[in-house]
């Protein structure tokens, strides 16, 4: 069974992001970037499946600027076997639908039994690509997976839904998107970091797959979230109740 794992290079989770003064987007120059944490979970799961003998090859793919190679190398340091970068220009705005189309084209060529991917990227929080890809391919999908079990050609996916846990059965080929609790990704070891540098990495373009990247959405404005105002200390319960009534108006 071949597994395809798409990964995205995003602003590191520890970075404090800032909006550009003109509101046209985020300040990304010289900001630390990392592999999207949900994608890291996906690659970890794929590698575990391979280690259990349930998968034969793990192919990692990224759609993004040249530097996305770093994300692919990180994924290969965890255990991905080879990488495909669909390189875009630094300035291109890539929307989920475009990524889904490219992934569909790659799935048509690679014919994986499973596409294992993050439920969302922590930069735009879209949470769309997996679902769109499932629709384009006409494959079954199990989103927000917190547990995956494979049994022949059937994948049991435990999903985190509002009411609790739901388990769905999917026939391969299928799409599974990962949630936070699926696993805890390992630290890549020093030898594996070195080995990842030598693993094959193909560079492609969107045109190679006949996909037009032109965005269909327009971002009007980006603004900082409102700054939290300093709180106040109250001297007594009576004062608290009074303030809740008058100032906060919640009582």
């Amino acid at each position, binding site marked *: 069974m071949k597994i395809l794992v798409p990964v995205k290079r995003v602003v590191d989770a520890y970075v404090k992001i800032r909006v550009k003064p003109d509101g046209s987007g985020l300040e990304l120059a010289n900001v630390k970037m990392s592999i999207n944490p949900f994608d890291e979970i996906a690659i970890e799961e794929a590698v575990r499946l391979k280690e259990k003998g349930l998968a034969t090859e793990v192919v990692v793919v990224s759609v993004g600027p040249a530097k996305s190679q770093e994300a692919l190398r990180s994924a290969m340091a965890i255990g991905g076997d080879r990488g495909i970068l669909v390189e875009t220009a630094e300035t291109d705005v890539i929307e989920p639908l475009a990524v889904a189309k490219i992934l569909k084209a790659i799935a048509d060529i690679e014919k994986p039994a499973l596409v294992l991917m993050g439920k969302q990227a922590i930069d735009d929080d879209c949470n769309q690509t997996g679902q769109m890809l499932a629709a384009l391919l006409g494959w079954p999908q199990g989103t927000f997976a917190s547990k995956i079990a494979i049994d022949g050609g059937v994948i049991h996916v435990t999903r985190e839904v509002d009411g609790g846990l739901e388990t769905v059965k999917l026939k391969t080929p299928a799409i599974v998107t990962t949630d936070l609790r699926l696993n805890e990704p390992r*630290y890549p070891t020093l030898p594996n970091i070195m080995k990842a540098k030598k693993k094959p990495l193909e560079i492609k373009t969107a045109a190679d797959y006949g996909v037009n990247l032109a965005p269909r959405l327009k971002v009007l404005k980006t603004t900082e979230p409102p700054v939290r105002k300093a709180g106040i200390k109250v001297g007594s319960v009576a004062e608290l109740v009074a303030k809740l009534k008058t100032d906060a108006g919640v009582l």
Partner: protein
Amino acid sequence: MNIAARNVAGRPIDYDAKGLVERAHKALRAADRILAVAKTGVAAKIAAVNGDVDAVQHSAHGLAWCATTVEGLRQMVSWAEGLNAQAKFNDFEQLILVAAFAEYLAQLAGGIAMNQGEVVRPEALGISKADIRAFEDTAEVQELIATGSSDAVKARLAQLIAEQPNATTFGNAGLDEIHGELVETMRKFALAEVIPFAHEWHLKNEYIPLEVIQKLADLGVFGLSLPEEFGGVGLGKESMCVVSEELSRGYIGVGSLGTRSEIAGELILANGTEEQKARYLPKIASGEMLPTAVFTEPNTGSDLASLKTRAVREGDVYKITGQKTWITHPVRADIMTVLVRTNPAEKGHRGLSMLLAEKPRGSDEKPFPAEGMTGGEIHVLGYRGMKEYDISFDNFPVPAANLLGGVEGQGFKQLMNTFEGARIQTAARAVGVAQCAMDLALKYAMERQQFGKAIYSFPRVANKVVMMAVEVMIARQLTYFSARQKDLGKRCDLEAGMAKLLGARVAWSNADNALQIHGGNGFALEYPISRVLCDARILNIFEGAAEIQAQVVARRLLEAGN
């Protein structure tokens, strides 16, 4: 956070990246001229006392510090050039460069603090007033000092630092992709597995858990620079540096563990017989065998060559008898590298040999469950997590086949040959501790409110953090440089010694100032900075006390032809 009061939107320097690098180059040339004058001056002082360096230690060690200061600047220029060539020499890095130059150039002219109480003045180095005047009048020196020490530069740096308080490094460290990735991996590991626990290990005087050691082993840390044929990863000293730095930033004990094996490994790799290499290196690389270094004695610390512990050969075994002290992590170690005297007729270093002595692991209750070996714990201020012991050997047996290299009398020389690596590694640990102090200082300063605002908005608080960032970068670049030289197979004892000297001073001053920023809370055991202060203190003592280190550097500088 309220930094509005110090908000400086504009660029506090007037020239572009290229202009700055050019100015720094010229100022560096002027600094080199001062160093040349100092060398001549100190050589004359030594000649005047008939070559007795010890009689003029203040000047000789001052020369070492002068050269270290200049070398630090040289490596900063080379860092800046490297970044500039890749269009990565941005505002943050430029301001760090200009602040570094301002401070160190001014110190060259006015006096360098070897430590808080001992400042070496130009006069002590035989530098005349006229030389100093010419130096200070050099346009670039003047300009860089004026700009770099301005409030505007420090305020802007303070702002840049506060914008990314969780940054891996403050300013691009100039590493290539692979070393950058090693840093990120180790940082991630330290954030999850080390930082949340380090302070408790320290407060309870607990060992770093074996599970953590196992995880380090799984990552490949213990075999980092051993060749692959011996189960290592085959990386260079630069990798060793960045790994040590990041782990020590988490906790000095972990950083010291991680590469302690490295030193034993180097000792055996460079000097061992084929059998010794095959027997020990793979186990050291895998972490299966933890090593400990057994050199120091109650009466021989800095003057190691005069040590007294004897090893007497009886047939196929050496029997060790004598007192050792200050031995780090001996209880849980499996193999000791013991420096002993095999030839009592030779009082100096020629009578010394290195033995590879295996031992069983012990416990707090029974530290040394072996015949002929006893010892007790030394209670320490910091640098815990591995525990230090006094050890007495009484006819402790070691197979004769475990004489390192198979030839007696080589022990001291073998050890000296690992000193470059050990110094680089200790310098890297110092940089990590210095960075840890800065991390804690920054976090506290941004959170702590006084007079209605974060104390970080007061220049005297933020400036401390800024200078921490600047000096960490200087010490780091000097350390990386030594490592890269070593990786190229070049001699680097001088630079490595300087890196250790500077790194230890910066670790201490950063820890001290970071504690100051914590006010009374810094004095509470509960706050991690109290530990980091204690941890930072060791760096000036071991692997060559600061005075010994300065002496070694000075000697090398004054060697003929230099």
